């Protein structure tokens, strides 16, 4: 009996050792994305993009002689879950670095956990200004905050001859932040701001808001939300006979999905995006863009997802570059190394600049922003 127990103990010890050894063979990266709930489509695209980056890196031998392993968790489009998932990834999976969490409200919910566990996170999609201005030194954002989007848009407002605009935005940090930053920029330009309407992230019927906007005296509506709600808004606006110019922001429009699902209702709409998969040669890094798109197609994913998924791809490459620079997969070293990286992203160079209160700055890179227009079911580029 004692011997049997001893044997069991030896096996347990051996398993633990081998297990430990096997674990050390890979470098884990935590991925915190919405795979169910209101943002399921977008989160899934980002994760698929992240997997392409991980496979590409591993095919070239990994980093620091080890393969990288994505530990993917679903935050259910819910801020409470996003924070819980971050905690689980850091404490239970022992990931030294994270990428996430798609939505601004989701990311903001995760941020206190990053300070608590001193672990850095690459923010790949969120655009609320608050993320990089509240003084969280563990945040490194590669997506444009809405103020950067607004600044990029500034150049074209004269060309579009905007006079008065209404807003229809998702009722969370992302939507309200966008309405704030764009209003500020437009007021400086002498454009008057009319209605600021909001909608819940799960709402399916926006007829009431659109009816109100229909009878206002503005000529343009700025709409900020994710692709599924945009599709509904275009359809419902068409049904109400709303004839105003619609411009969307936020970079989560997936124009091809809009064309497929909203049909003619999408014609004439304009979109501020952060990636140009339709015109790879016009992107800052055509070679990488072409590689990414061909890999995306090879895996049988819908082309529409490219405008989201590239962020997952860039995000993981950013994380990998920082780990390589750090020389070891430890949270503090990786965090410090983010400041020294310079990689070619699909949407411009990823170099972090300091943003937020002194002494506890977040990192923010400066990606490009483009304006596209849908005409006759096709995407056209507008020059900014």
């Amino acid at each position, binding site marked *: 009996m004692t011997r049997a127990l001893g044997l069991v103990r030896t096996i347990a010890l051996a398993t633990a050792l081998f297990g430990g050894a096997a674990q050390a063979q890979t470098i884990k990266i935590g991925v915190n994305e919405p*795979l*169910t*709930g*209101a943002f*399921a*489509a977008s*989160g*899934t695209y980002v994760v698929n993009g992240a997997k392409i980056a991980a496979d590409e890196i591993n095919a070239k031998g990994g980093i620091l002689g080890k393969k990288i392993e994505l530990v993917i968790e679903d935050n259910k489009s819910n801020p409470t879950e996003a924070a819980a998932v971050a905690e689980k990834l850091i404490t239970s999976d022992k990931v030294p670095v994270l990428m996430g969490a798609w939505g601004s409200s989701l990311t903001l919910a995760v941020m206190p956990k990053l300070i608590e566990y001193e672990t850095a996170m690459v923010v790949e999609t969120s655009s609320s200004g608050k993320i990089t201005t509240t003084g969280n030194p563990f945040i490194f954002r590669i997506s444009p905050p809405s103020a950067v989007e607004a600044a990029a848009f500034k150049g074209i407002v004269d060309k579009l001859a905007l006079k008065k605009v209404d807003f229809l935005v998702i*009722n969370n940090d992302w939507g309200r932040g966008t309405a704030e930053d764009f209003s500020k920029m437009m007021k400086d330009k002498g454009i008057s701001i009319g209605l600021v*309407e*909001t*909608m*819940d992230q*799960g*709402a*399916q*019927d926006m*007829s*009431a*808001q659109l*009816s*109100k906007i*229909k*009878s206002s005296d503005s000529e343009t509506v700025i709409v900020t939300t994710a692709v*599924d709600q945009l*599709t*509904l808004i275009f359809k419902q606006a*068409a*049904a*109400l*006979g709303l004839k105003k110019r619609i411009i969307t922001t936020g970079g989560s429009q997936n124009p091809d999905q809009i064309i*497929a*699902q909203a*049909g*003619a*209702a999408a014609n004439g709409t304009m979109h501020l995006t952060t990636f140009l998969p339709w015109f790879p040669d016009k992107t800052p890094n055509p070679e990488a863009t072409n590689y990414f798109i061909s890999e995306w197609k090879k895996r049988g994913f*819908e082309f529409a997802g490219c405008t989201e998924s590239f962020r997952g791809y860039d995000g993981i490459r950013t994380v990998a570059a920082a780990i390589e620079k750090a020389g070891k997969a430890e949270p503090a070293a990786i965090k410090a190394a983010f400041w020294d990286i310079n990689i070619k992203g699909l949407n411009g160079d990823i170099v972090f600049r300091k943003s937020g209160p002194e002494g506890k700055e977040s990192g923010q890179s400066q990606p490009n922003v483009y304006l596209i227009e849908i005409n006759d079911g096709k995407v056209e580029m507008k020059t900014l």
Partner: protein
Amino acid sequence: MSEFLQHLVNMLVLGGTYALLGIGLTLIFGIMNVVNFTHGVLYTFGAYVMFIVVQQLGLNFFLALPVAVLAGWLLGAAIELTLLRPLRGSDIDTTMLVMIGAWIAMQSGTLWIWGGVAKSVTTPFPESPLVLGPVSVSWLRLFVLAAAALLIVVTYLLINKTSLGRAMRATFQDHDTASLMGVNVDMIYTSTFAIGSSLAAAAGALLGPVYVIFPQMGDLAAVKAFAIVILGGLGNITGAVIGGFILALAEELGAGYVSSGYRDAMGFLIIIAVLIFKPTGLFARAERVG
């Protein structure tokens, strides 16, 4: 003024579908006394049946509607036979837990089969809306309103004018007496649940093409259905119809003139008011006590 008229038209269109959701649930929750958490999933299921029949099989839109209703009927009957029948006579908490389990399992099932990306269904209706002066409304939504009205009338007649409806009401008033009078009680339980389920599926099949179809679409619909049933009084079909329109009116005017951020809260504020001042619902008949 034109904005107000547009809000009223929106209310009519939205109210019709809320009414349809409400009557399906009032049959099950109000008459059978089963807290049916699968109502929202059946709504989602109806929408996905439309997606399969119209988009994947390429069949006619109008043919797909009865298919969805029938599929909802069959799924409802299956739920009653496998989950509710063995539990008959057990307390309401047990049934509720089982229904919550069924809800989660079925919702995860739709996510597993179709994924989280929203689907849409193409309809045979023109994309340009019907314009009447300052008001405009899509043809699809008018069709949905007409179809909902038809289903509501048919359900009302079924419950109030047919012998099946009489047997249903008798069974849930007094199960033993109905049984002694020769009513096949088992059959009545199954058909009531199946009819309620088919109405949920019909609502999903009608609204799926109006909106987009995704696994969690039924959650908000189910919450609203419960609100409508409570508003109208349990088991009261007319009450559920009126409750549906009241909820739609509150949402439209609330979003239009108060604050769009609180659109979905408006309906629930009304529910709270109703529960405080008239806890049995606006249109509940006086109940026999004891």
